[in-house]
């Protein structure tokens, strides 16, 4: 059974059709999905509910999802960013979080979310900025997954 089975996932995605697609993928992976399409909804959901994981589209129309990332980080919820621009599409202050290149693909989503579960949330201290939280996601590491030791 998938490690993602029954996990509560917050999905923040502002395009209706894309949100439907990503929601279906997460449901197929066995996740319980809460969808938020606007920043205010996403913040309200992140405050009101306990989540195991989150998928954050970076650009929410004219707003960005970083305040949600801050809130999730404060609450210890691991999250990844989804953007069509790869890592360049993410503010360097948030480079500790994994980045999923859009368009959404089920296999990529499953891999990243599974490792996020195993490796945990990026740390809160300033010192870990600029490097991925989860070394097993770094390209070139190949199949030898190495998780950072917990601080």
């Amino acid at each position, binding site marked *: 059974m998938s490690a993602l089975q029954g996990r509560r996932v917050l999905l923040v995605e*502002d*395009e*209706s*059709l894309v*949100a*439907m697609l990503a929601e279906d993928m997460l449901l197929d992976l066995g996740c319980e999905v809460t*969808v*938020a*399409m*606007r*920043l*205010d*909804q996403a*913040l309200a959901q992140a405050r009101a509910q306990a989540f195991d994981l989150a998928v954050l589209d970076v*650009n*929410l*129309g*004219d*707003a*960005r*999802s*970083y*305040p*949600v990332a*801050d*809130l999730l*980080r*404060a609450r210890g919820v691991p999250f990844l960013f989804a953007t069509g621009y790869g890592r360049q599409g993410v*503010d*360097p*202050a*948030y480079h500790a979080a994994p980045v999923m290149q859009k368009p959404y693909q089920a296999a990529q989503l499953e891999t990243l979310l599974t490792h996020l579960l195993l490796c945990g949330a990026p740390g809160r201290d300033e010192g870990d900025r600029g490097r991925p939280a989860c070394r097993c996601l770094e390209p070139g590491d190949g199949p030898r997954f190495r998780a950072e030791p917990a601080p």
Partner: protein
Amino acid sequence: MSVTDPRQTRPSSAARLPSLRRGDQLFETERRLNAVLDNASVSIFLMDDRQHCVYMNRAAELLTGWTLDEVLARDCPLHDIVHHTYPDGRPFPLHECAIDRAFPENNQERGEEVFVHRDGHFYPVGFTASPIRDDAAQVIGTIIEVRDISEEKAAAERQRLLIDELNHRVKNTLSTVQAIAAQTFRGRTDGAARTLFDARLAALSHAHDALVADNWESASLRGVVDRALAALAPGRVALDGPEARLHPKVAVTLGMALHELATNAAQHGALSVPEGWVSLRWSLRDGADDRTLLALDWQEAGGPAVAPPSRRGFGSRLVERQLPMEFGGSATITYAPGGVACTLRIPLTPLGWAGQALVQDPQEHAVPGHSAPDHAPDGRAPR
């Protein structure tokens, strides 16, 4: 000089030396004006009643390549020095010049012209001309402010090229997606699914056409409606509602939603029989948060008896769930026996910047103790 600022002048010394004080003040006033004029980034020309330039500031000297002394020595209208030739090489006589043709009737008459630099190159300028009057209100000269607008012209041109490229790229990408789908699903899926897919992709493309018409800044509501219904229900939907400008996101999602309603009507509803028809009426109301509320009602009539669908498909999910989630408001589809009805209430996203509410009420969205330094705490994207 001990007395340079009138505010520091003691009344006693001023009383003793009234003429000296006036002289000092004049000198000081001129010094200040020169400091202002020579540090201004806008070029300023003072013209007499013969269109000769009697003063120009430092920015004007840099702009034209001529010094004030040189211009004074030429003893001719300024036009003959900086504006003598059209960009196509024809001579530009003074009497055709919009700036110099006459004294401006009103203050701050504006326009754009192309000047000739001393080295011969042409540059676009924006100008503002105002008359100078004597004590008898006679116009005795003109003051002209001039700005080099080369950068603005170049930026506008880059923007135009970028929008052309964007239009082309979006259309091409949608066509490519269609081609990939056609190749991928050839022989693996039934023709009905492919037809549905192609129609949805076309609807997405048409929704973008409405954006192209207004440089991607907004879309005409009427244009979105017409484009969404043209393919499936030409002439069979009675439209009634005022024009409005839609935010691009609203335009695309609404276009797709209307396409789904029309598709359903054509397959199962009123548009599946020749005598059926649809009424689409909408109005604009005052909504919450100073937003305009788009109230849109789709009503089918004259079709076969309607039964609620056994499962919720793509269309109803998009309309009833995604649309309210994306924009707020509400959406309901009712499957009454007389015909399908859909009620949409969409608070229209303000044009320009959707993050306005967040900026005006940042406290509501602030996360205590956590704010990243590299972005606005309200999460607003830089524009």
